[in-house]
């Protein structure tokens, strides 16, 4: 590939190699930063503001989604002045309900699409799925890549599919879920990240939340470094969304440390970094109340939806 050229694509089989031991060691360094006092409070508020509050269940109903939207706008009114979350993340069938419930709050509606979570459907079905969600009012689309094709080495297929979905998104921002728990190695996570970014992803995202392991710090680090390299190469910023398995504030703060030290200031906001989570919000609220009052409150003081 010609250096610096944007029109030519790299050979994805030559994506940079990742040393597992080194990545895990580096990721554990971020957990050793001591976050206290004001920096803890500011970090917690930032985390709350970066959450994509998520419900992705077969049993989701209008009622459930409406309640979740209220929670998104008013996380804990007992403490005035708290930020809202960044977005609500739902299935395409729930987009309209969410859009209406959120009104002009500024909170985005993200919809999963493309035969989420397996992605095992023909391309035209995936495109229709995406267009449906966009037409219903989705601001963001969370697609899944075809992991089977990826493992079979059909990188062009995966690339073209992402590009096609990006086109179907129109103005909606596209998050590309790699489902890292199914990829097996960090080398493959890096390769999939490169494919997704070159194919037009606005965000890369670790997981659907349906497969274990979901987001981990090492896997997120590999993706953040891919984003950094892509930024240096093209000048284009790509967002990052770890999803699944981040349910505690302390862990979320460790992720913030990682973003701060790998990508810096420009990524430390909900335009470029999100947490895909459902139970994280309440743990963050519990910590915020603790910081403000000095005591922990029982879980029952925080609304579940």
């Amino acid at each position: 590939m010609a250096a610096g050229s944007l029109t030519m694509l790299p050979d994805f089989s030559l994506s940079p190699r990742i040393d597992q031991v080194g990545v895990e060691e580096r990721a554990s360094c971020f957990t050793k930063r001591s976050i206290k006092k004001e920096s803890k409070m500011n970090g917690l508020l930032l985390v709350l503001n970066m959450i994509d509050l998520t419900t992705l269940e077969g049993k989701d109903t209008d009622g459930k989604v409406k309640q979740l939207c209220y929670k998104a706008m008013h996380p804990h009114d007992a403490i005035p002045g708290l930020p809202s979350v960044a977005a609500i993340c739902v299935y395409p069938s729930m987009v309209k309900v969410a859009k209406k419930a959120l009104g002009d709050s500024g909170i985005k509606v993200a919809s999963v699409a493309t035969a989420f979570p397996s992605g095992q459907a023909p391309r035209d079905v995936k495109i229709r799925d995406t267009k449906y969600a966009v037409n219903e009012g989705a601001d963001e689309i969370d697609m899944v890549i075809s992991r089977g094709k990826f493992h079979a080495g059909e990188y062009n297929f995966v690339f073209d599919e992402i590009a096609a979905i990006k086109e179907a998104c129109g103005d909606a921002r596209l998050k590309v879920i790699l489902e890292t728990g199914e990829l097996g190695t960090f080398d493959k996570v890096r390769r999939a990240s490169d494919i997704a970014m070159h194919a037009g992803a606005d965000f890369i995202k670790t997981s659907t939340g349906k497969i274990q392991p979901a987001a981990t710090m090492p896997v997120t680090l590999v993706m953040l470094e891919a984003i950094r390299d892509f930024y240096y190469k093209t000048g284009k910023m790509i967002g990052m969304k770890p999803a699944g398995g981040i349910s505690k504030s302390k862990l979320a703060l460790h992720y913030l440390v990682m973003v701060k030290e790998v990508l810096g200031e420009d990524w430390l906001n909900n335009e470029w970094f999100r947490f895909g989570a459902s139970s994280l919000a309440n743990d963050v609220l519990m910590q915020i109340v603790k910081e403000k009052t000095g005591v922990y409150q029982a879980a029952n003081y925080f609304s579940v939806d």
Partner: protein
Amino acid sequence: MPVTKKKTAAKKSNTIKLKFDTSWSYDPAPESKSAATIKPRYDLFINGEWQKPAGNKYFATINPANEEKLSEVAEANTADVDKAVRAARNAYEKYWKKMPAKERAKYVFRIARMVQEKARELAIIETLDGGKPIRESRDFDVPTAANHFFYYAGWADKLEYAFPNRRTEPLGVAGQIIPWNFPLLMAAWKIAPAISTGNTVVLKTAETTPLTALKLAEIIEEADLPPGVVNIITGAGETGAAIVNHPDVNKIAFTGSTDVGKIIQRAVAGTDKKVTLELGGKAANIIFEDAPIDQAVEGVINGIYFNQGHVCCAGSRLYVQESVAKQVIRKLKDRMESLIVGDPLDKNTDIGAINSRSQLETIQKYVKIGKQEGAEMYESSCSLPRKGFWCRPTLFTNVAQSNRIAQEEIFGPVLSILTFRTDDEVIEKANNSPYGLSAGVWTDKGSKIFNMTKRMRAGVIWANTFNKFDPSSPFGGYKESGFGREGGLHGLSAYVSLKV
């Protein structure tokens, strides 16, 4: 608060710069000094007692991060050294040589456990006295020191398995001289194998960092070792010379500069003293184009900036294959910006204070030489505290093999970056050094690792990692980096004589 909309247009790639000075920052998180007790004055630990120095002279030891005096320690003269050696000889003949090995082991295990129990206090004192970040003394120095005592305690009654079909005898009195970069850990490296194999010890600490070894003396006192088995004394170069020249010392173990190592080597010539020397280094850290680059960059940062670069095995010569050099240098510069330089007691500090004023002057001298030689200097943009001895993480690009900054040991946070094209070229350049202590190789290709490690003349070679230490693995150099091995089975043989 809605999603903030920021400018998303792609920037020209030559103007791209990541901003690590972020609006969200870390508050100070200092470790508490009150968890450590430092006496205002320390005498010499000889024959199980704290004895005043014969010359009644004391000198101050300071905190290099703020130049405040921490304590004062005794200056041992020839008479004190003689007293210590006689105490060690007496303990050797009277108790230690005769004691069943498994009984000796119990004492060493006890020291190991007590080092663990007092880990927090030892870490704080190490950081105060030497300037290294508390994260390193807490997570590396102290636990590794305890591990060395545990490891060699385990060997004490199993020497027949270490040396099959041979009988082992201890050497007698070991004179040991340790450096200032890892004061407690080096004391452990020296004392643990010596006493586990039945020798007794006179150990001299470095002038600028005596306090944790004196704390270890308190532990040894509390552990109730027979008097004189371990004697710990303080002083400068002359005290060390008195140990080396003492006729009743059977073994000299020295870690420190190559210059002093040569003096020791001359001094013991013609005697039957056994010697091990662990001296300087100028390690080559080699990055091939197929390496896992981000992890290699992390390894280079760790290799040169760990302990402010005061590491004899520091990866101070970086050889990077030309095809990836630009990328590697950019990544190094970015990574340097996220290194936190400052109060060593702060748990978030990555790089602490330079150990002493004289070491800072040495480092500054080499930085000046590097600039004069035409290399390009880059340093991180961090601000430095006003008091104390500080040096920003620094690197030089466009360095030539013939530059002094590529040949001589700087012993500070200064990296020299050179490029290469082929495997043969880099092996030749890596070996083109008077030193041969350690080296690093970064490549995704296993066969290349074996080819490199076989042909490089260095005592320790790390592949896709750097600065990894374990009590079971030997450490030592080629050429002017010294001889003899410490750690592992090899470390045992430096303290025994083998009989049929």
